[in-house]
């Protein structure tokens, strides 16, 4: 049988000869990416890469773990140690990775469905333990990859392929969930707030324990189109109009309700013993006792 030729993919150049400054962190042979035009995942990814660059972190010391979904492709695109887990299992994989090699900065980069529907249980337990990882959740309010179905963050009355007349379920308020489960750094931004998002990722990467950042992002193809935010610019304008930057707010009241103002900013930034610290303390204690 004839050898299968790899598909030759055209490399679109926006400006001839001009490269993205963060290209060194990408597996360019994997490009162009699969994301739709107007998707916020690119902004989320570049914010993360700029954060790594500006902190001067050795990319060899960063591991990126993703679940499944459009956002799951992060792991495949970054030129760092990365792993694409099964759907929902990014966090337990990352926790294991961090325990095996505590020198790594372990980042989970995944979607709202992956982290809070099928993988929700892992999230609360990693936060409870204050496991030493950073979770970046790109929230597009639906299951993007599988065609835009209702998920755990879908707002009330939003239309999806499985709620054609509007969602009637209560959604999660992710920052409240994270804070109440025990996360020690919790923030929310949108892809409009790229610079603040980057600064926040920098903080999270340096903050010990379980860090969580919700990144609200447009999904024009699946979510926006069905919810009067036809293109990504509409959604960006919506963020500009409705997002209110405030820090230190009680996340309990920080719901994202369509048509209403919503709060972005840092909700939690506290220090408490991390899982690794507690683990080490216990082993030292036992070593002292039993030699």
């Amino acid at each position: 049988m004839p050898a299968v030729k790899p598909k030759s993919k055209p490399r679109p150049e926006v400006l001839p000869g001009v490269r993205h400054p963060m290209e060194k962190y990408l597996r360019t042979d994997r490009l162009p990416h699969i994301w739709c035009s107007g998707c916020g995942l690119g902004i989320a990814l570049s914010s993360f890469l700029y954060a790594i660059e500006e902190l001067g972190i050795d990319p060899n010391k960063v591991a990126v773990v993703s679940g499944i979904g459009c956002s799951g492709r992060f792991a495949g695109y970054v030129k760092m140690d990365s792993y694409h887990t099964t759907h929902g299992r990014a966090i337990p994989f990352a926790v294991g990775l961090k325990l095996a090699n505590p020198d790594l900065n372990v980042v989970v980069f995944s979607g709202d469905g992956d982290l809070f529907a099928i993988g929700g249980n892992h999230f609360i337990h990693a936060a409870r333990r204050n496991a030493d990882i950073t979770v970046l959740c790109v929230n597009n309010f639906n299951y993007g990859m599988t065609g835009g179905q209702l998920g755990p963050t879908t707002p009330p009355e939003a239309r999806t392929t499985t709620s054609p007349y509007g969602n009637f379920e209560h959604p999660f308020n992710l920052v409240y969930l994270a804070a109440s489960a025990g996360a020690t750094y919790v923030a929310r931004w949108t892809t409009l707030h790229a610079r603040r998002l980057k600064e926040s990722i920098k903080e999270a990467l340096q903050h010990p324990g379980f860090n969580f950042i919700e990144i609200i992002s447009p999904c024009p193809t699946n979510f926006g189109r069905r919810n009067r935010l036809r293109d990504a610019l509409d959604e960006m304008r919506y963020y500009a109009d409705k997002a209110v930057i405030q820090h230190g707010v009680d996340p309990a009241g920080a719901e994202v309700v369509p048509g209403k103002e919503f709060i972005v900013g840092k909700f939690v930034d506290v220090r408490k013993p991390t899982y690794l610290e507690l683990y080490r303390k216990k082993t030292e204690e036992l070593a002292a006792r039993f030699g």
Partner: protein
Amino acid sequence: MQKTVVGYRKAMTGHKAVAEAMRQIEPDVVAVYPITPQSEIAEYYAEYVHNGVVRTELVPVESEHSAMSACVGAAAAGARVMTATASQGLALMVEVVYIAAGLRLPIVMALANRSLSAPINIHCDHSDAYLARDSGAIQIFAESAQEAYDYMIIAQKLAEDKRVRLPVLVNLDGFTLTHTLQVVELLPDEAVKGFVGEFEPIHPLLDVDNPSTWGAFAMPDYYFELKRAQQAGMEAAPEAFLEVQKAFSELSGRAYRGFFEAYRLEDAERAIVVMGSTAGTAKVVVDELRERGEKVGLLKVWLWRPFVREELVKLLGHLEAVAVLDRALSFGNMGALFLDVTSAFVHEDKRPVFVNYIYGLGGRDVTTDQIKRVYEELKGARPSHELRYLGLRE
């Protein structure tokens, strides 16, 4: 074949065909989680529910494990229940599929066959079906969207047959069948409703006057007997299957007869055994080779679990050589279908030479040329333990 009702023909995808069968059956509860290449089944069904076309309770659960758990709960309560999944979805669900079978719950599920990770892949093979092979669920394979539609309806009646009461998986090849447009003849809604009838639960949990306990402990004192009783359900399935299939054929005019479809087998010398859409490709080859005077045939498996060995021996016993095509590996052994087919001949003195091919993993295309090569290689085939690979670059 004569039929009792007049159907209507429409071009539709396999997804739609399955969703239409579900709409006509109109189960009480559907719990489902999206996964490629199944998602559109859930989406079509959501549309029916939200448009008030069906009175089903649709539960958009947060994972397949929850989907099957919700199905088990609803079925134990006495509801007629359906779901659909694929690949990793079934892998996550399988813990509870075993429980559905152990509790003798007649849950019907469409499985849009897709390969299992790792590496991740969204295209067709049968590794997901093989994963649930020993789960206690009945498994049926469809060759076309039409068969997927028909067997969803047959499955419902079979699952609920009081002699059987087991979950049924209806397999349809992901993308090849789910996403392609084919002409499907649908039965009138009332014909399907009449055919499946009312569901009569046994000891439903919601029968508060006759309280019962489900899923209770069975220690070494009773577990064994309960499992034997479950096997009895499986043993009763072939007879029930034939009855339901016959009744369905009379209703629809589509001639489904038996556990296997024998295609130009009577005088054949060489044959292929296969499940799913590849049977369609193989039939084209059989016709072509027949025109050239080659005595070749095909055996397509409809009912894979339970596997009816006696029938198989009758159909294949006269052949010289048979190639069994498995669309999944059973690591460390020959293909699972090959083992099924060959073990059916364990007591036979006269038997064909059997060859095993693994094909189409991860959606690798299966061409008529490859199938031709199989028929060619069957000429003068000798017994061997070699596992062959079709369409693999080595």
